[in-house]
């Protein structure tokens, strides 16, 4: 057991830190072209698509360095390494693995260059957790597929140029995972309607997307017809430790601690109150536990072992923290917490005002509800019978 980095890894970490220090200085952040300069600089470093093969413009980076890169960037509070998040995370990898040479040439460089957004058409109404039961229909008609149906919970649909879409081309299969076909669809195709879903926090990150006889050329078939389910699972060596996410949670906790130091509650500093201290300490401990769990997942990945259901452990912790850190902030602030925009008379730095306190469902429900995670652990890891 050894929690230390190798000299080569340390050198890479130092390189990332030095880069971040230089490119993320307060002056740099204030400069007018900050974001585009940043994107250009990390692209030159080949840190965008860090784990993509070099042949496709990626960095060809290994697991351990992916972790280092992501963790250091998270700690430095860096902007993303590229703006086309879904493209970088799974659309690109799926195209690398299943795409034609045409598709690779046409799409991969744009993703790396943050040219436009991709969105993901997976979920359907009525089948939230039961993805493979999807009903959105595609019928081959000459050189085109004709799509009819509906998707829901599609993030950033309104400002995406392309969608990676799962459709059903065969309704008579024994296994519902068969007969699914993956298509790449241009969002301005006739027949597509996007209806943003307003959420309780006032935003509308997600949309419903309706397809009414939308025609997609067969060249935009990704992988084989009927074998689209496989496309959702990338074989690309993708670090899954979640360690960079933990760095983000730690930052969030630091803010809550700072809030507790500044706010008074029933006439006394919140950070001096045992109940608040205990909840902060417990959150801290869970975050450290997640980091260390992440290192165990990472070790397994480094050893080439498959990683699957264990990551549900951290998903459950993250769901707990998403709710707990928000609730804790509100409790610390008392009545003032209700002033969503902040309260200048509270004596608390307005930048610490808890934003996104109503956004937790995105995290808690987004990646599969806690109950789904518990089922995964109980059935796949512990071998308990299905419900």
């Amino acid at each position: 057991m050894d929690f230390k980095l190798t000299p080569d890894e340390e050198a890479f970490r130092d390189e990332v830190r030095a880069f971040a220090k230089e490119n993320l200085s307060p002056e740099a952040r204030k400069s007018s072209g900050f974001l585009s300069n940043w994107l250009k600089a990390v692209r030159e470093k080949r840190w965008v698509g860090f784990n993509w093969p070099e042949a496709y413009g990626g960095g060809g980076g290994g697991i351990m360095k992916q972790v280092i890169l992501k963790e250091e960037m998270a700690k430095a509070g860096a902007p993303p390494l590229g703006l086309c998040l879904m493209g970088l995370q799974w659309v690109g990898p799926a195209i690398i693995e299943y795409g034609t040479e045409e598709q690779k040439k046409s799409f991969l460089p744009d993703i790396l260059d943050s040219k436009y957004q991709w969105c993901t058409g997976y979920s359907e109404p009525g089948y939230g957790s039961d993805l493979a039961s999807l009903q959105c229909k595609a019928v081959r008609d000459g050189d085109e597929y004709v799509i009819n149906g509906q998707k829901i919970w599609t993030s950033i649909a309104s400002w995406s140029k392309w969608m990676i879409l799962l459709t059903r081309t065969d309704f008579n299969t024994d296994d519902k995972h068969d007969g699914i076909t993956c298509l790449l669809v241009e969002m301005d195709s006739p027949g597509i309607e996007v209806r943003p879903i307003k959420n309780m926090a006032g935003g509308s990150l997600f949309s419903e997307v309706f397809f009414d006889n939308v025609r997609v050329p067969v060249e935009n078939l990704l992988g084989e017809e009927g074998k689209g389910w496989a496309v959702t699972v990338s074989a690309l060596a993708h670090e899954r430790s979640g360690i960079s996410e933990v760095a983000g949670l730690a930052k969030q906790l630091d803010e809550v601690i700072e809030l507790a130091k500044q706010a008074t509650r029933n006439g006394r500093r919140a950070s001096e109150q045992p109940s608040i201290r205990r909840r902060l300490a417990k959150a801290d401990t869970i975050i450290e536990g997640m980091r260390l769990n992440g290192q165990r997942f990472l070790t397994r990945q480094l050893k080439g072992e498959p990683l699957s259901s264990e990551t549900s452990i951290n998903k459950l912790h993250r769901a707990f923290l998403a709710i707990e850190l928000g609730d804790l902030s509100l409790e610390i602030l008392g009545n003032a917490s209700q002033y969503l925009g902040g309260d200048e008379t509270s004596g608390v730095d307005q930048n610490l005002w808890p934003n996104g306190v109503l956004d937790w469902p995105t995290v808690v429900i987004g990646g599969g509800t806690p109950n789904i995670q518990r089922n995964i652990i109980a059935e796949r890891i512990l071998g308990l019978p299905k419900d």
Partner: protein
Amino acid sequence: MNFGLTDEQQILSNVARRFLDERAPMSTVRDVMESPEAFDDKLWSAMAELGWLGLIIDDEYGGVGLGWVDLAVLLEETGRGLLPAPLISTSLAAAAISDFGSADQKGRYLPSLADGSAIGTLALLEDGDVLGPDGIALAGVKEGGGYRLSGSKRFVHDAGVATLFIVPFRAGSEILFAVVQSSAEGVSSQSRRTMDETKRMGDLTLDNVLVAPDDVLAGPADGAVALARLFDLAAVAVTAEMIGAMDRAREITTQYAKDRIQFGAPIGKYQGVKHPLAEMYVDVETSRSLLYYAAWCVGEKPDGLPLATARAKAYASEAFTRIGTDGVQLHGAIGFTAEYDIQLYLKRSKWALPAFGDAEFHYERVSSLGGY
């Protein structure tokens, strides 16, 4: 021994539910909550006609002359329906005047509260949000038998629509209560944007306001004790609305669990869903028991009120926090869309937690009052 609604209370409850279903369904609630002050004139007049605004005001002052258990029955319904209206605020102002005002003061203030032409509220808190005498820094400067007041009150419910504020202030070692009209010179007040849009809250600013001698409540022998009672009454009122709201959140979620089919069966079939729903039921029913006893103490056993209130607000605050969160969570993604009502109940739970003392505050009171 009868721990159940009397026939009259059952009628009050039924009438309230029917009125709210007809006149303030969720579509109306949403319209009203998006209005600048979350206030609707016509609804208010209708409530006055039903006698709700003067429910606990003596009939000689234009009220209905009922008690706090009756008020709790009513507030459970308005909480259930998330009715946006300053009913709690105005009832509390009426209670303060009824308990601590002279006959003259009752005669001057109560009829207009009962008929809805005035809207009252308590303005007990200041910067620092401290519940109790320590939280009162506002000092009155004597002037001709009355007082000059300059300062701010914070977290005043319905600050934007209230026309009459009950304002505790210090006069030497005493705490007195001024009745301040919004129309008086130097008085300004405004609501601010809050998480639960059905509940407005804001600031009352007093700029050298003159309080005439007969606008100081005559009654309370000990201002600190009176203040404590007002905090208790306020906590009881808020808790009554919480019970209704959490019960409704439970119902909505239970219904969803019956209707929503996933993996071929209603999700309510799974213990991971049905057990939290059962726990909600346990929590709602137990909160309700605690609350009704506290409401009964208001009139029948004032000595028991502090402990009964502390228990009810503490337990209900914890329960509602959990029910709000679980309610949204058990709905899955749909639960946090603006379109679904369940998220409005989550927001209400966030509003209700700190209102007149959170769970920690009230559990600490249970300990102190328990003598340890």
